[in-house]
């Protein structure tokens, strides 16, 4: 029987510790700001200042736009060039990049929570408590999962506000988000967070330091870059149903990784890993 009070205090302690880790906190603030504020503002201001889509008339971008599926193209009907460019860039193409947030946030917190405990030589004290292996795992996993999902959602809300306020002169109405984003935010984002937690716990079993665990799990960003490349070349376009399928695949992968991570997360294994 799981003791929720113990799980809660483990999550509380890990979050308190994460708050004191400057490198994690800095990345938790800076990266969302770049994705949500800096890049969109540059694009929007460029478009609204010039009053034309010239800034986006790069030949490579044009190839990208040519690959937009008809289903998306129909949603853009009636828009002028600037509105189309902004919608495509910030409303569609930018979507996979947004997924970097849950990956990066949960990987950094999980690395801090699992590998950091070994690095700071606090693991043994924790293993001598009466918390069960499952309570320890869940408490620690939640400390990475919950903030990464919540911060991503908060960043999404900020993104909506910025796109609609700064983009108002161009669109003259509330134009964002598009329906595809809901699947992305509420289905794919939690899946990616869980995936990153599972992967980072597995990596942390081998890594001796927070940094090495974080750097190795950082390779998960390739998944997102793959989606971005797929979307840019027209191979996979993140429509609502594609988002649901991608999310399902991520959830299944997360399930496998978390299952494997739980198998290796027991006192004996953790102590022997520590000894190595």
């Amino acid at each position, binding site marked *: 029987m799981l003791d929720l*009070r*113990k799980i809660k*205090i*483990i999550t*509380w*302690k890990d979050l*308190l*510790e994460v708050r*004191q*880790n400057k490198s994690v906190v800095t990345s938790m603030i800076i990266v969302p700001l770049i994705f949500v504020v800096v890049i969109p503002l540059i694009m929007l201001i460029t478009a609204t200042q010039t009053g034309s889509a010239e800034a986006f008339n790069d030949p490579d971008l044009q190839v990208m736009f040519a690959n937009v599926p008809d289903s998306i193209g129909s949603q853009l009907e009636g828009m002028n060039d600037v509105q189309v460019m902004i919608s495509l860039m910030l409303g569609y193409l930018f979507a996979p990049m947004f997924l970097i947030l849950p990956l990066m946030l949960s990987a950094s917190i999980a690395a801090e929570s699992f590998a950091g405990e070994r690095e*700071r*030589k*606090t*693991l*043994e*004290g*924790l*293993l*001598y*408590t*009466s*918390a*069960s292996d499952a309570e320890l795992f869940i408490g620690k996993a939640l400390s990475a999962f919950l903030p990464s999902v919540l911060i991503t959602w908060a960043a999404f809300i900020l993104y909506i506000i910025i796109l609609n306020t700064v983009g108002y002169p161009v669109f003259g109405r509330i134009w964002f988000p598009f329906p595809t984003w809901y699947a992305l935010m509420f289905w794919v984002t939690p899946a990616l967070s869980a995936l990153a937690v599972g992967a980072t716990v597995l990596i942390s079993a081998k890594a001796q330091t927070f940094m090495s665990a974080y750097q190795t799990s950082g390779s998960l960003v390739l998944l997102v870059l793959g989606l971005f490349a797929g979307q840019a070349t027209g191979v996979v376009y993140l429509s609502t149903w594609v988002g649901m399928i991608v999310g399902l695949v991520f959830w299944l992968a997360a399930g496998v990784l978390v299952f494997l991570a739980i198998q290796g997360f027991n*006192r*004996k294994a953790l*102590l*022997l890993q520590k*000894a190595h």
Partner: protein
Amino acid sequence: METVIDVKNLCHKYGDQQALNGLTFHVNHGEVFGLLGPNGAGKTTTVRLLNGLFEATSGSLQVLGFNPSDDGEKIRKAAGVLTETPALYERLTARQNLKFFGTLAGLSEPDIRLRTDELLELFGLQDRADDRTGTYSKGMKQRLALARAWLNHPKLLFLDEPTSGLDPEAAVQVRELIADVRQQEGASVLICTHNLDEAQRLCDRLLIMREGADRAQGTLAELRRLVSPGMWLEVELLQQPVNMNDWLNSNHTPGLLRSIQAEEKLLRLEVESEDVIPTVIAQMIQAGFLVKRVQPQEISLEEVYLQVQNFHHHENTSG
């Protein structure tokens, strides 16, 4: 007498490496029991097995009436452990550390608050209670780690090298705290140490380990008798009597003296027991010895320890 730890023929292997090899001992209620041995003797492994962190390869063990392999959580809930390193969360304050471990030990919020104040006061940390423990000295960290181990009024306390790495003042302070709190709370204590002075001061009974097995165990007096059945006296004379060598060679005290070492005016006599000291000294005076000082020489635990370890080392290398 109630037994809180009962270990019989305990064996444990890490892969091919035999960490414990037939260890047998018991700890009585209210007793301070010391596990002595060099690094790698198996002391920490024993504590881990007793707390259910590992499963024994063979043998039987009971802790507070529970089997650690099945009821590790129950044992960890009722016991307190001071690990070799303080293992505190250094980015958290003392209060936050105690809140965390108190909750995991199953204490209620009001109990944690009450107990935290009580222990911080007792361990002299109340002025720094809201500072991050990373800013503490080694001695303060060790005191807080000890407070953490005592948080849940443990029936049984495991202390792994409690004064390791501390300066002499801090070590004395920690030892006094262990003695005080043990008296106040009446807990049974198992101490792992290679600090023999500490073991001699704190422990009621001792077990000397080597290579995962027990080499000798008992009270300090029992261990002394094991390595040296008699008792040593140092007798200083005002002057060496003319007939001293004759007296020494002729054994004027049959059945009382076991052996004699003489160096000018200083004699070392091994007597049968404490009870025969007056008789031996009276006979020496009668024989014309001018006795200036008589000093019973207790064998230190260090001598006992070294003799036990060396005996087994020679036994192993010659065998």
